[in-house]
């Protein structure tokens, strides 16, 4: 790929695999290199980010409001020009060859774009014609997709009579009508109830399995990133601050926490664990009658610990394992909880800039 040679000087980008190792990103369909977007008023929405997405991968951007997720998508889908850096989608430069990029991609935007005054089916038909899908083929696909998003019964109703979730589902099926090679999903489940969200996840996973489609999605739901993505980029203030598999991200947080309830917890008990072979104790504290132990892998450590407790006749009342969550990962990387940001979500520009200012000062 000439672009890569030019900008990576023969160096390959690396993708983390689930074992915590790294493998080169082969057949990258999205290549982003030092991409930057500065809006007027010196708003750095995207601040020199670089990453690659391999074919068939589900890649997720996880970040709070105003992090720069939509702006990145908007550049990659040829709606906005970057102010710096380069981006290629399917081997075509998004700045120089927008029409070639457009042919291979699909976008389900964050905002609803379906036409309220048309029926669901008419919306799909229009989309099919905009993407030059032959009529008979379009007809077939529309029926399939409406079935997939469970809108068959309401297909011939005007979209203005749809609920928000129905519109979002229609929007998703519209993005699929031309079978894009790369599908961009900007917050695909925003505003959906748990049930619809889960079924949306199912659709997306199914799509990946069946079609080897590459999916680039953004979300500020940790569960969503965890459930869907092969790799996650944590983005905040226009920067990718971590990029790894969900497992890898959790690992960097520092492993599992095991809470063991004993008759009385003291230094001796912690010493017992510290002295055990094959256990890399990361942290150990006593709170009341509970020993809190942090280890890289609870699956193998816990049996060893329990065995040695038994041989030393220490009675164990209960055991709790806390797996690291993306919540923790996010906290670790950004210095704040994603949920805080979410609770006052959808703020105006003012709110975002003040929270940004606060964060910058803290740094």
């Amino acid at each position, binding site marked *: 790929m000439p672009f890569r040679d030019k900008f990576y000087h023969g160096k390959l980008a690396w993708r983390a695999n689930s074992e915590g190792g790294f493998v080169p990103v082969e057949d990258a369909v999205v290549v982003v290199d030092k991409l930057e977007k500065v809006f007027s008023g010196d708003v750095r929405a995207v601040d020199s980010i670089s990453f690659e997405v391999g074919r068939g991968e589900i890649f997720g951007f996880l970040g709070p409001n105003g992090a720069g997720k939509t702006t990145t998508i908007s550049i990659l889908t040829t709606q906005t020009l970057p102010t710096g850096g380069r981006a290629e989608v399917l081997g075509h430069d998004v700045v120089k060859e927008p029409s070639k990029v457009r042919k291979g991609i699909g976008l389900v935007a964050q905002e609803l774009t379906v036409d309220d005054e048309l029926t669901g089916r008419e919306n799909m038909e229009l989309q099919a014609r*905009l993407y030059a899908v032959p009529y008979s083929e379009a007809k077939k696909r529309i029926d399939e997709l409406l079935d997939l998003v469970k809108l068959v019964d309401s297909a011939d109703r005007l979209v203005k009579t749809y609920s928000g979730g129905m519109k979002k589902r229609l929007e998703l099926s519209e993005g699929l009508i031309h079978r894009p090679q790369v599908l961009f999903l900007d917050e695909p489940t925003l505003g959906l109830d748990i049930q619809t969200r889960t079924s949306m996840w199912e659709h997306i996973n199914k799509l990946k399995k069946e079609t080897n489609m590459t999916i680039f999605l953004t979300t500020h739901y940790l569960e969503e990133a965890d459930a869907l993505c092969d790799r996650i980029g944590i983005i905040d203030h226009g920067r990718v601050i971590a990029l790894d598999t969900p497992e890898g991200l959790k690992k960097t947080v520092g492993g599992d926490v095991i809470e063991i309830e004993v008759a009385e917890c003291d230094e001796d008990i912690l010493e017992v664990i510290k002295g055990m072979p094959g256990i890399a104790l990361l942290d150990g504290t006593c709170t009341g009658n509970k020993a809190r132990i942090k280890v890289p892998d609870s699956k193998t450590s816990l049996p060893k610990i329990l065995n040695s407790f038994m041989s030393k006749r220490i009675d164990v009342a209960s055991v709790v394992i806390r797996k690291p969550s993306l919540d923790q990962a996010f906290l670790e990387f950004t210095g704040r909880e994603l949920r805080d940001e979410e609770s006052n979500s959808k703020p105006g520009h003012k709110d975002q800039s003040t929270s940004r200012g606060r964060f910058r000062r803290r740094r």
Partner: protein
Amino acid sequence: MIGETLALIARDLKRWYRTPAQIILVFTTPLMWLLLFGQAFNIGRLAQVDGTGMDLRLVFGGAPDYFSFMAVGQTAFIMLFASFFSGVSILWDRKFGFLSKLQVAPIPRSVIPLSRIASSLVKSMLQATVVILLAASFVLIPGLSGLRFSPSFGIVEAAGMALFLALLGIGLAALFVALGLVVRNEETLFGLINLLNFPLMFTSSALIPIALMPDWLRTVALYNPITFVVDGMRQLVFSTDVGAEYSVAVDMLGIGVFSGLMIGLGAVLARRALLRN
């Protein structure tokens, strides 16, 4: 290119005929003009009262009475208002995300304004036809004046009228669709429309005979694109060049040039507005 354009035209028309309120409103305004203004403002009477026996056709661009005069003028307004609506509708499409959907789609950018101009033209030509037929049918209603066509009005004249209206409609729609793309804010667009609306309407000979205008206004009116259109159409409808300002050919040339200029201006504006930034 053709496929996408037709699909978008169909979409615009569906939105239109599914909103009966919009259709009713679209016909109410011209009908009010015809019924209230056209019937009441019968300035032809003044000349009759005066008793000088002057040829009214000289004042009314060949029309036998004021109503016939202004009924032809009404069709130009229909083109004007339909173009306003198209401009506003494309701004709404931006607001509701539909435009960004089109911008991501692999279609030539020009399809976006062209399809809107075309759908605007379909709507406005239909409306103009209906209004002309209504105005003509008033003749049959006792107590009302109606649009009195010349007996020699035929298919050629009708086609000529359609061409005049279409050229006006294309030029105006090109301008307002481009404005709808450039302007991002409704208030500004409405303000602009208002700003253009009055001069276009009242410095033309659509409602007010040029003969009655003060000199300065007459000079302006003679270059108003609407004047070319109504001047030409009246000659076709009443089969006479009595009271005409220009020959039909010059009228056609005038509106053709206007339309061409507006398409050029619209293309420049729309291109800029659809460029990424």
